[in-house]
């Protein structure tokens, strides 16, 4: 104990001297943000620190940071008047939001900034707001409605968005079903053939950013066979869309003679896909088994837990993750603040599972996947943990926070939103404490 204390003291002395040294090399116009003493309750890798930028904002879903460091975050569900998008401003540079304003009368998940516009989605429409040269919305009351009439069912209703560099916007339209059964989520019910949902959902649609009131007629089904995507990002280095699919639920409940509780908890994988125009990920006909590393025929479509799918129409995932962790945020890191290995790699926010019961739940963390030459190197690692505030999450209701959205600040900080309490975290790298 004493050893640790003296070590810590040494650290503090070392830290303060290095901080002083670092400060003197900077011009005095920049106050460095300090991580919270408890790193905002998160467990991080050595050298990283975290602070709570804001708290209790509501169901904060995706978020984006403008060039000035102001944060816009989208609120989900039924929102009070002018509470659909929250803007966070930090006027004294301590990293804590001290001016919190809001606008927009629709709930939703998607938000992004591109070429002087802020884009935000409800569960049926996408809007955009012109930004001024300070990154502030010019007219909060009258956004342009660029997309309308998107299908919204009883499940997977949120619309996530990503933009490319050629004037296109990509919108996830989730399948309003678990596995396209004749009777949804009913034991033994077989799959509809072909699955009629795929005509207007279960994929990514591409629209123009600058055309008003586009409907399905003007959009294009860019990728299909994706049950539900919440986390997606345009990888500018590869000039390609990447998405994270939420795999199907309830293999054991629906087909107990084929899958036991363990199989239910461990299958199917949550999957990352590098999307090309026309990619078909195979839902609902196949799922990806992370233990066999194969696409398997779904039990609703003649599968028996052992039958591999050899249909060439279906793409393989870029990477597979453990089942049911619910990837809600994807971000390719392009900043310079974090060590070199993070550059161009992917951060993924896993909202955390519910479909592993009676086994303990899992996820509730942010992971990192290093990329080399546009491909993951095959390993993922937990980057930030401790959001749930529990050692073991037995019931989802008990999780204090669930990571959802990811964003990168102009200085390379990583921002994470939580949609339970509406906490916004900022994760920074502090070279001195390495």
């Amino acid at each position, binding site marked *: 104990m004493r050893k640790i204390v003296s070590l810590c003291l040494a650290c503090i002395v070392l830290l303060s001297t290095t901080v002083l040294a670092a400060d003197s090399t900077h011009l005095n116009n920049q106050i460095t943000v300090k991580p919270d003493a408890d790193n905002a309750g998160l467990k991080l890798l050595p050298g990283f620190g975290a602070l709570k930028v804001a708290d209790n904002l509501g*169901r904060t879903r995706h978020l984006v940071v403008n060039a000035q460091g102001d944060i816009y975050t989208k609120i*989900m*569900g*039924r929102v009070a008047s002018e509470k659909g998008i929250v803007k966070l401003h930090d006027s004294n540079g301590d990293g804590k939001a001290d001016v919190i304003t809001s606008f927009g009368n629709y709930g939703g998940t998607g938000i992004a900034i591109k070429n002087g516009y802020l884009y935000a989605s409800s569960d049926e429409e996408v809007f955009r707001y012109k930004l001024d040269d300070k990154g502030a919305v010019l007219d909060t009351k009258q956004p342009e409605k660029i997309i309308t009439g998107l299908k919204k069912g*009883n*499940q*997977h*209703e949120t619309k996530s968005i990503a933009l490319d560099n050629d004037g296109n916007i990509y919108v996830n339209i989730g399948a309003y079903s678990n596995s396209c059964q004749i*009777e*949804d*989520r*009913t*034991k033994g019910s077989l799959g509809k053939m072909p699955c009629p949902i795929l005509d207007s959902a279960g994929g990514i649609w591409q629209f123009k950013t600058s055309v008003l009131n586009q409907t399905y007629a003007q959009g294009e089904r860019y990728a299909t066979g994706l049950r539900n995507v919440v986390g997606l990002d345009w990888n500018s280095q590869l000039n390609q869309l990447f998405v994270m699919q939420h795999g199907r*639920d*309830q293999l*054991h*409940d629906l087909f*107990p003679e084929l899958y036991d509780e363990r199989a*239910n908890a461990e299958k199917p994988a949550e999957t990352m896909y590098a999307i090309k125009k026309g990619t078909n990920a195979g839902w609902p006909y196949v799922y990806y088994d992370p233990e066999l590393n194969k696409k398997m025929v779904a039990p609703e479509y003649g599968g028996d837990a052992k039958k591999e799918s050899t249909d060439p129409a279906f793409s393989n995932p870029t990477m597979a993750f453990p089942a049911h962790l619910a990837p809600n945020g994807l971000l390719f890191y392009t900043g310079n603040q974090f060590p070199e290995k993070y550059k161009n790699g992917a951060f993924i926010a896993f909202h955390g599972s*519910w*479909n592993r*019961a*009676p086994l303990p739940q899992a996820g509730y963390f942010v992971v990192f996947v290093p990329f080399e030459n546009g491909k993951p190197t095959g390993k993922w690692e937990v980057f930030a943990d401790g959001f749930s505030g529990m050692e073991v999450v*037995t*019931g*989802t*209701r*008990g999780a204090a926070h669930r990571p959802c959205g990811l964003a990168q600040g102009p200085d390379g900080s990583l921002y994470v939103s939580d949609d*339970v309490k509406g906490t916004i975290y900022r994760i920074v790298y502090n070279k001195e404490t390495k």
Partner: protein
Amino acid sequence: MKAIKYGVVTLTAFFLINHQPISATEQPSPSTLKASIGRGKELYLLQCLACHQVDGGGVPHLNAPLDGSANVKGNNKARLIKIVLNGLKGEEIEGEAYGNVMAPHKDLTDQQIADILTYVRNNWSNKASQITSAEVKAIRAKNK
């Protein structure tokens, strides 16, 4: 299944002989309640656990909680029975919308539905009266 039915019959018979007869409106004796809760627990684990979770807390915004729900503990037994028979979707519960669907469970017997509901009404922090197979039978007859 048959065994359970016979068990209930013998148990009921036992009470008829040893105690005063139970009328439909009267509270069942503690031991029948206990037996029903025990059977209900097994069925809950198989049929309901995935969505409503071990702690009955459901999944925020996705699957409604059963623990602490005024509806689950309340007197509208018919509604609860109908939810299990017919499933539920797109219905707001106490101002909250849920982003999942609950499938119908018509294949469960009257006794099984009675047991599951009696269990969820008497587990976690919930405490409420038993639901009987006769009550389920009556609702099922009117349910199309």
